[in-house]
């Protein structure tokens, strides 16, 4: 921002035009955040205001009735449980596999390394149905429909490519010399990893796990197709039960959506900076 003052001297109208830009910027911010505002405010306003032809931008009063109705919907507890079991297991498994692969890609040159990276990038572009149909047929044949493990395997692998590439980015930034000097000092390769590399890698692993966790938490399509048993619905599929033939209970839907989104928003705020920084610094370096 140091250059601002210089250019201000050159162009006296700068300050005025900055005000215009600021107003436009605030307008865009308002548009972008409005749906989020609408979610929260609808969750908190009385149901008679939601079921009204005349929607108002401000609520007349605040109530938690919608949250109470949402938590009283059938299977709320089991849905939380299912989402947690599936997401956490998938993330733990995924992180172990991704870290191993990231170490290999980041630390060694070996035949097939480039091909592996290319495959990892490519598989992320496959349309979901190209996977959904054969996986459904295969799990059906193996008795994996309505079982957590089917979903866990799918989530684990679907976050694997991105997690591997992300962790690899952190691995290459740890100097090899650290590892080597540990080994010179008598560590085995495994000890060098556990005592030197792993602590340095931990923040990167945390970011990658949050990323994977949020991804698994948000997934709905595979959960919808692979789980038909009401008591094993994940939260997102449970959310679909708010719409029945008699219509949608929007108040409860907004309240439940707020509850589902809240942990994601918190986690997202934690890693966002890391992600945004990582995204381009690599891309522009050429």
């Amino acid at each position, binding site marked *: 921002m140091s250059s601002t003052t210089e250019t201000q001297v050159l162009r006296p109208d700068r300050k005025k035009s900055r005000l215009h830009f600021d107003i436009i910027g605030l307008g865009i911010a308002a548009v972008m955040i409005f749906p989020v505002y609408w979610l929260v405010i609808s969750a908190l306003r009385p149901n008679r205001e939601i079921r009204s032809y005349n929607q108002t931008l401000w609520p007349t009063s605040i109530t938690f009735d919608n949250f109470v109705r949402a938590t009283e919907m059938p299977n709320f507890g089991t849905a939380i449980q299912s989402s947690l079991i599936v997401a956490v297991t998938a993330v733990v498994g995924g992180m172990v596999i991704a870290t191993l692969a990231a170490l*290999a890609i980041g630390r060694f040159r070996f035949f097939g390394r480039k091909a592996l990276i290319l495959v990892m990038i490519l598989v992320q572009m496959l349309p979901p149905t190209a996977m959904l149909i054969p996986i459904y047929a295969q799990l059906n044949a193996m008795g994996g429909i309505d079982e957590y493990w089917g979903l866990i395997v799918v989530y684990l692998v679907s976050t694997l490519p991105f997690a591997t590439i992300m962790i690899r980015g952190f691995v290459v930034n740890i100097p090899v010399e650290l590892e080597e000097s540990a080994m010179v000092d008598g560590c085995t390769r495994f000890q060098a990893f556990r005592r030197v590399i792993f602590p340095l890698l931990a923040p990167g692993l945390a970011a990658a796990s949050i990323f994977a966790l949020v991804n698994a938490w948000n997934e709905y399509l595979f959960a919808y197709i692979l789980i038909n048993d009401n008591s094993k619905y994940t939260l997102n599929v449970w959310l679909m039960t708010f719409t029945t033939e008699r219509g949608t209970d929007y108040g409860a839907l907004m309240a439940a959506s707020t509850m589902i989104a809240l942990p994601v928003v918190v986690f997202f705020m934690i*890693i966002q900076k890391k992600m945004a920084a990582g995204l381009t610094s690599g891309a522009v370096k050429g």
Partner: protein
Amino acid sequence: MSAADTKAVGPPVPVPPDPQPTGKPSSADGDAPRVQKRKRKKGELLPYFLILPAIVAIAAVYLYPLGKTVIMSFQDMGRRELWSGEPAPWVGFQQFTNILGDPEFWWVTFRTIVFMAICVTLTMGIGLLVALLMRKLSTWVRLVLTVALIAAWSMPLMVAASIFRFMADSDYGLINTLIAKVVGEDWLGHNWYLNPIQGFGIITLLVVWGAIPFVVVTLYAALTQVPQELEEAAALDGASAYGIYKFVTWPVIKPVFTMVATLSVIWDFNVFGQIWLLRGNKPEPEYETLGLYSYSKAFESTSFSQGSAIALITVLLLSGVAVYYLRQLMKTGEVE
């Protein structure tokens, strides 16, 4: 993964984080041939052991199903074969001739491409303008805008779709209330989905709203790499604002822009969730894009082979874009 999932948490952007600011080669592949040599000898098998679990996992959940999609496309697998486990009969190119001979398929393909083009144009256009605007803002406004973008970005797709479904509801939707205030009472109760063009308008709104944060944050980060001295020098030499943009700013952000645009093409081509969720899990035929068309053939009409064949055609259509994307990545050295 579709465009949808991008906002879920941030996109599976295959650009690896490499916060090393210097152009120095990273330590792993760099300046110590002696170390390299020793490593190769010592760890000849180790890297393969390390990647083995990942390879098995990816093969099981991506490559094997992809192969199975190919096989199923040449069979006729329906509900009976699925449940009895009997081998499905081979039918050669039957599925493909059926699909390609069906005018419905061509309509769906046309709709998918037009929808994708509109979404990508809007996302990239608005995204670029907002990113450029970000540089002109006061610090506190930029902070406010960033928070708004991140808030929108972090909304899970399922939640975002619920919000938009509520806002566009015919009875209790905010959009109808607002339009009715301006235009007149007859807009109350207007159903946005009776006319697919209007319905796709709402869907486009949801897709573009969800995709903009990623594009803005990425492009803005690229813009911070534009050397300010160059822009100032150009301004002093009398270049117009557009001239500065075209000859100084654009060349720097172009690689990132191309990459994000290519990813957007792939994601918006694969848009599934937004349409599926806004149309209550059962989109009408006039709302089907290729993904949904394949889905409904497989799971509504239980013709899994037809669904697979359509999915395979989609993969083939996209492979050109994917190859282009990979070439971009290789050029910037990301795959090294």
